[in-house]
């Protein structure tokens, strides 16, 4: 079973919860799909056993063969190629390219456009006390983490449960990280920002028809902002983690919430059980 952890809003505790869920449940694999800002390794502190580069194909236009007909530039919907016919020049904007391969397909001259690999980021695999770990690290300056997330999902072994830590927000990289997962755990906090972004995230997972539940972080007694919303929308709250300076201080040192919360392990094992039951009943 693949469980993705998402949040809409950043800083709600997604990573520390995802790490805690993985550490408390044996034989899971923790996957850091927040490739723009991967932080899971700070908490798991894995020994990296394997590291490789993730590449996508981009066009290399050979101007000595190019006839500057402009077919590639016309076909590219991302406007990643400009052909300056009068001065016989081809310009390629790598940050706009989606690596679809259409330009080389429409090029009428043999070998005028060659597809060459370009590194988008790196994938690292590691382990700590039997806890498996995979992360993707997007290269600085790369516009989209989506291909890297798509690529790293291929390396998740299917013989055990995976906890996939996604990036904040609700756009393309998040859709790619939660897509194909069996359950989405939405982490939120009881502030108006938290509630607003939770609503957006709920809209996204409903649209994608994925089973999901909520975990409230930084909960304060008497604040029922999230509870009221969940009750109205009939969404299950799987657990609550209190707002505490102690947890925040531990987090700052790279200690996940499971190690600070009284009965932390039991709390996260329990959440996993609820998820398993939920998935079984809805599927």
């Amino acid at each position: 079973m693949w469980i993705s952890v998402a949040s809409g809003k950043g800083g709600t505790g997604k990573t520390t919860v995802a790490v805690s869920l993985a550490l408390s449940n044996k034989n899971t694999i923790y996957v850091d799909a927040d490739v723009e800002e991967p932080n899971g390794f700070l908490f798991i502190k894995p020994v990296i056993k394997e590291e490789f580069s993730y590449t996508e194909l981009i066009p290399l236009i050979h101007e000595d063969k190019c006839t500057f007909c402009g077919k590639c530039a016309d076909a590219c919907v991302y406007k990643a190629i400009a052909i300056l016919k009068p001065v016989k020049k081809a310009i390629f904007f790598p940050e706009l390219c989606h690596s679809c391969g259409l330009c080389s397909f429409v090029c009428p001259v043999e070998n005028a456009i060659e597809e060459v690999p370009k590194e988008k980021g790196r994938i690292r695999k590691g382990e700590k006390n039997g806890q498996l770990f995979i992360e993707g690290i997007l290269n600085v300056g790369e516009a989209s983490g989506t291909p890297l997330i798509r690529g790293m999902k291929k390396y998740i072994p299917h013989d055990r449960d995976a906890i996939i830590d996604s990036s904040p927000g609700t756009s393309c990289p998040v859709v790619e990280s939660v897509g194909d997962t069996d359950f989405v755990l939405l982490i939120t906090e009881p502030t108006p920002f938290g509630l607003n972004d939770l609503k957006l995230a709920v809209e996204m997972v409903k649209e994608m028809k994925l089973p999901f539940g909520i975990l409230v972080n930084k909960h304060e007694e008497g604040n029922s902002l999230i509870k009221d919303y969940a009750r109205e929308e009939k969404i299950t709250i799987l657990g609550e983690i209190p707002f505490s300076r102690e947890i925040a201080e531990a987090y700052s040192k790279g200690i996940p919430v499971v190690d600070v919360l009284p009965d932390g392990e039991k709390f996260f094992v329990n959440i996993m059980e609820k998820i398993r039951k939920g998935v079984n009943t809805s599927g």
Partner: protein
Amino acid sequence: MDRAKEIVILSGKGGTGKTTLATSLSKLIPNKVIVDADVDASDLFILLKPDPLRQDEFKGGSIASIDTKKCIQCGECEKKCRFNAISRNKEGNFIVDSYKCEGCEFCTYVCPVNAIKMNPQIVGNWYVSETSFGTMVHARLIPGAENSGNLVALVKREAQLIAKKKGLRSIIVDGPPGIGCPVISSLSSAALALIVTEPTLSGIHDLDRILATCKQFNVNAKIIINKADINQSNTEKIQQFADKNGLEIMGKIPFDRCVVKNLSKNLTPIDSDNCGAVKKEIKKISNDVLRYLSE
């Protein structure tokens, strides 16, 4: 007149207090246009309560759809699609997964019977609104939609037009988290990036990556440490890192429960008297920003 100076507030890591600071600065700095560029989790409106003057649709790229009546099931489209967006459904028909389709149109080129067409998508709305603190340009992307970088570029362009029309010299931009396309789009043409970080291991890690991004796009960056007293030794590490790299730390905001308490009542730390130390530091930051704007 020159372009208005864009001050963009970024963080790399989410949840460091970017929007709280952006709202506070929007209240303290006069004569500006306000932009919420965190288009997939825009929260600035919650505290600034904008009154929409204008609303427009935002069109993203097109996505493919296959006419199963025309389709001869040759499978060429599935073979060529690099995004794995085309597959057979239970009935054996080829279908497009709209979440995976990136709109490249390759499939339409290889289909021998013209069974595939591209459909333009409305992916969100954008607004020009009035607030008690100035005009605000913001947007709402449909959750799960793509193209947020283009939407960020659009709201910033509109803000420049408004600034020009009204003779305003500055634009305050609340940016998105991360370092990807919406962030790059927020950074393009910015005069100054205020990077809000926190003294946590993840905060430091992400600070490093967002500063590298600013450097790559040639944007001057200054650092603000939020919750600075939560881990003194990490705060010192950030200070040393800044000193070594010639970066200015514009402020150190203390950790205080009052911030969350105020937020849950839709107030910023500067709106009440229960948040003394936080309020004082934010005012100091805003004075520094004002000085920068008048240079």
